[in-house]
C-alpha cells in the first residue's frame, strides 16, 4: 500500500463556467493502474467523475489522458511507474473538453477519415488470398497496430498550434495503407497528405512517438510518407 494524492481536472458543463481541480488522498497498491484510481474515486467518493474506458488493458484506445502532464492510457499506467506520489490527471489537449476527462473526439475522427483509411484494390479478387511476402507484410505492420486513441495527435505542438493539421494519427493510418503492397490507393492518399495541412505540418517534434501507447514509430512513419511524396517511390 502506498499513499498518493490524486489531483483531478474537473469540469461539468451543466454547472461550471470554468474548470477546477479536485484533490483526493488514496491508499493504493503499487500495481494499481491510474484507471483503477479513477474507478475508486468514481465508485466510492464522487460518482459524477466522468471518463471513458472499456478494455482496461490498453487495446481499445478509450482512456487517453494526461497523467502528470504526459499523454498516457490510464489503464496502461501503473502507480509504481510514476515517480511522484502526486498524480495529476487531466484531459488530452487540443480537443474541446466536454466533461471532466471526456473530450470531443469528432475532430480527431474527421481527420482520420480524410486520409481514406481503408483498403483499395479494384482488381478482380483472387480465388484465395492475395499473396504477400512476410517482408511486405512487415513493411506496414507497425502502423497497423494503431488503436486510434488520439494520444499522438493531441500531444503534437504543431497540432495544438494549428488544428487544421491532419495530425500524426491520420498519417499513421495513411501509412498503413500506402505501404501495403496489396493496396492501390497510395497516389491519392499522398495527394491528400501533400497539402498545406498535410504531412509538412510535422516539425519532427517526436511528442507523438513518445506518447504512443502502442509504441508505433510515428515520426518515422511520417518521415517515410514525406519521402514517398518527394521521391514518388514507395520502397
Amino acid at each position, binding site marked *: 500500500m502506498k499513499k498518493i494524492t490524486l489531483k483531478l481536472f474537473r469540469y*461539468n*458543463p*451543466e*454547472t461550471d463556467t470554468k474548470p477546477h481541480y479536485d484533490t483526493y488522498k488514496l491508499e493504493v497498491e503499487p*500495481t494499481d493502474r491510474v484507471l483503477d484510481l479513477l*474507478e475508486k474515486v*468514481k*465508485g*466510492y467518493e*464522487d*460518482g*459524477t467523475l*466522468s*471518463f471513458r474506458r*472499456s*478494455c*482496461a*488493458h*490498453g*487495446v*481499445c*484506445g*478509450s482512456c487517453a489522458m494526461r497523467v502528470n502532464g504526459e499523454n498516457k492510457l490510464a489503464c*496502461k499506467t*501503473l502507480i509504481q511507474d510514476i515517480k511522484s506520489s502526486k498524480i495529476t490527471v487531466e484531459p488530452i489537449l487540443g480537443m474541446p473538453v*466536454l*466533461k471532466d476527462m*471526456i473530450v470531443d*473526439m469528432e475532430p480527431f*475522427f474527421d481527420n482520420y*477519415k480524410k486520409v*481514406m*483509411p*481503408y*483498403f*483499395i*484494390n479494384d482488381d478482380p479478387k*483472387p*480465388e*484465395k*488470398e492475395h*499473396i*504477400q*511476402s*512476410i517482408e*511486405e*507484410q512487415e513493411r*506496414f*505492420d507497425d502502423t*497497423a*497496430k*494503431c*488503436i*486510434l486513441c488520439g494520444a499522438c495527435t493531441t500531444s503534437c505542438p504543431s497540432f495544438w498550434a494549428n488544428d487544421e493539421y491532419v495530425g500524426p494519427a491520420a498519417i499513421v493510418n495513411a501509412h*498503413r*495503407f500506402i505501404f*501495403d503492397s*496489396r*493496396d492501390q490507393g497510395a497516389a491519392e492518399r499522398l495527394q491528400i497528405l501533400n497539402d498545406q495541412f498535410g504531412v509538412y505540418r510535422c516539425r519532427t517534434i517526436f511528442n507523438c512517438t513518445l506518447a504512443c501507447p502502442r*509504441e508505433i514509430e510515428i515520426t518515422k512513419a511520417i518521415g517515410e510518407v514525406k519521402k514517398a511524396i518527394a521521391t514518388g517511390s514507395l520502397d
Partner: protein
Amino acid sequence: MKTHQFEVVVVGAGGAGLMAGLYASKSASTAVISKLYPARSHTGAAQGGIGAALGNLEEDRPEWHTYDTVKGSDYLADQDAVEFMCKEAPGIVYELEHMGLPFSRTDEGKIAQRFFGGHTNNETTKPVKRTCYAADRTGHMILQTLYQQSIKNKVQFYDEFQVLDIIKTDEGIAGIVALEIATGEMHVFHAKSIIMATGGWGRVWEITSNAFAYTGDGVAIALRHGIPAQDMEFFQFHPTGIYKMGILITEGVRGEGGILLNGKGERFMEKEGNAPNVKELASRDVVSRAMYQEMKQGNGVDGERYLYLDVTPETVNKYAALDGRTRPDGTPYVVTGEEILGKLPDIIDFCETYLGVNPVTDPMPVQPTAHYGMGGIPTDNYGRVVVDKDRKEIMPGLYAVGENGCVSVHGSNRLGSNSLLDLVVFGKFSGIEAANHAKNSEYIPLPENPTEYAEQQLDALRNADGDERLSEIGREMKEVMFEHVGVFRVEEGMKEALEKIRELKVRFKNIKIDDKGKQFNMDLLNAWELSNLLDIAEVTTAAALNRKESRGGHARNDYQERDDENWMKHTLAWLEEDGVRLDYKDVVFTKFEPKKRVY
C-alpha cells in the same frame, strides 16, 4: 426526443455488428448504433486468431473443423449450425483478406496459421494448424478492417449512443430507443429489422478478461421483453488470465509451445485424467478445470492461487523435444526468443507493463479468468431470434449475432478462435437476411410513447436516493459469482449465490446516484448496466443450479459426469416477475454421436 427511420438498425459495432452493418447496408438503409466508438469494441481485444480450415500449412478439412467444434462443445452444439459455419469459414477468411486484413504470412506469402486448443487432424488426432492470425492482435485487425470498410461504404454510424430498449408492440418489433450519451437526449430509431450485437457479459465475474462495457445489455433487454436466453449456465473460463487482473494471455502462447507448470515445476496437463494426448492444447474447460484442481491441491505457485505459463525458449524446446514435435517440413520444433517476440508482441508488452515480467526469460503467473458466454439470445443460422423450444416461432425483425447470440455453435464450451469466426459468418448472414426482411415488410407503427419504458427505468435510477453504493453492489455480485458460479460449482454454493443476487437486486432499488445531470451521465448508465448484470447473474445461476450434470463450461462437484440421458438439451430461461422460468430444447444432431470427450 428525436426520431430516425432506417430499414435496418444494428446495435453494437464490434466484429458482429460491423459485419452485419456492412452487408445490410448493401441493400437497405442501415444505421449502426454503438455505446462505444466502433474501434473501441471488445473484438479488438481478441488475440489469438480466427479458425478456418484453409490448410495453408498442413492438410485440413472443414469436416474436421466441424467435428472438433462439436466435440469441443461437449456435443451440445447444434450440428447443422456448426457444419454451416465451418464450411463458410475459409471463404469468409479470404473475404476478410480481400478487405485488406493484414494477416501474418507463411513463407509462401499465404495466410499464416497456428495451433489452438481442441483443433485436430481427425485422422491422426494430432493438433492441426487451423487458426489464422495477425500476430497476437487478430481481433484488432478484424475490428479495424471492418470499421475501415464501413467508412469506405459510408455506413451511417451513431457513436456513443446507448441502446436502452427495443420497441415491441403487439404487431411486432418497431424499433429501438437509444440515449445519446453526450447530450442525454432520447432517440427513437424506427426500423424494420433490428440486429442485436452487443457482445458479452463477463463483468458479472470478479476476474475477467472482458471490457468494462461487457455488461450484457442485449441479452438483458431481450429478457425484459419476454425473450428467453439460452444456455446461460455455460460460461467459459479461459485458463490463462494474468494473475489477479484477468487480462488474457492468448491460447496462441500454448499454440507456440508454451507449457503450464505447477508450483512444483510439474507439467500437470500430462497427468492421467487431464489431457495426456494433447496436453496444453486441450480444450479450455478441460485446462481450466485441471488448473483449478492443481491449485486446490495446494500445487499453486508459493501456495498462492496461480500457476505458471512458461514460453521461454528453454522450456518450449525441452518439452517440444519430449513430445517429438516437428515443423511442417519435418525438422524438430526449436524456437528462439526472437521468434516468440515476433509472434506474441502484445502479450510480451502486457506482461512487461502489468507484471514487470518478460515472458521470453521468465514464466507468467496465470489463473483462469471469466472469458466468454456461450449462451445468449437463441437464433437460427440467419440470426433470426427463435423464441420457443420447438424452433418454430421466430420473432420477425429481430436478430442477434456475435457473443450475445446463441446459434448454438459453441454448445457448452467454445473452441478458441471459433468466436471470431462466429461473428463474421453469422454477422454476414444476418445482415443479408435483415435487409431482405426489411425489403419485404412494412414499418410497424411506433406506439404512442415509445420511450416510456426506457425513461421509466432511467428516472427510477436517477431519482433513487438511497444509501447503497453502486460499486459496492457490483463488487459483492462479482465476488459471489466468481466464488460459487465459477470454474467449479456445487448445489449449496449456487443456492447461496442465487440468494445473494436476489438480495442485491433488492438493495439495488435503494442505490444512490451522485450525478443528476444529462450530459455524459456515466453514473446513471453504469447503474443501468449493473441492473443488466444482476439480471444476467440471476439467470445464469438459476440455469446452472438446475443442470445436474457436468458438461463443458459447466462443471459441478456434486454431479461430475456428463449425463446425456437427461441433459443433452439446451436451457431456455425466461426472466419473470417472481424469478427465472426454465425450459429445455433439443439439440440438433446430424453426423456425430456423442462420445466421451478425451484429449
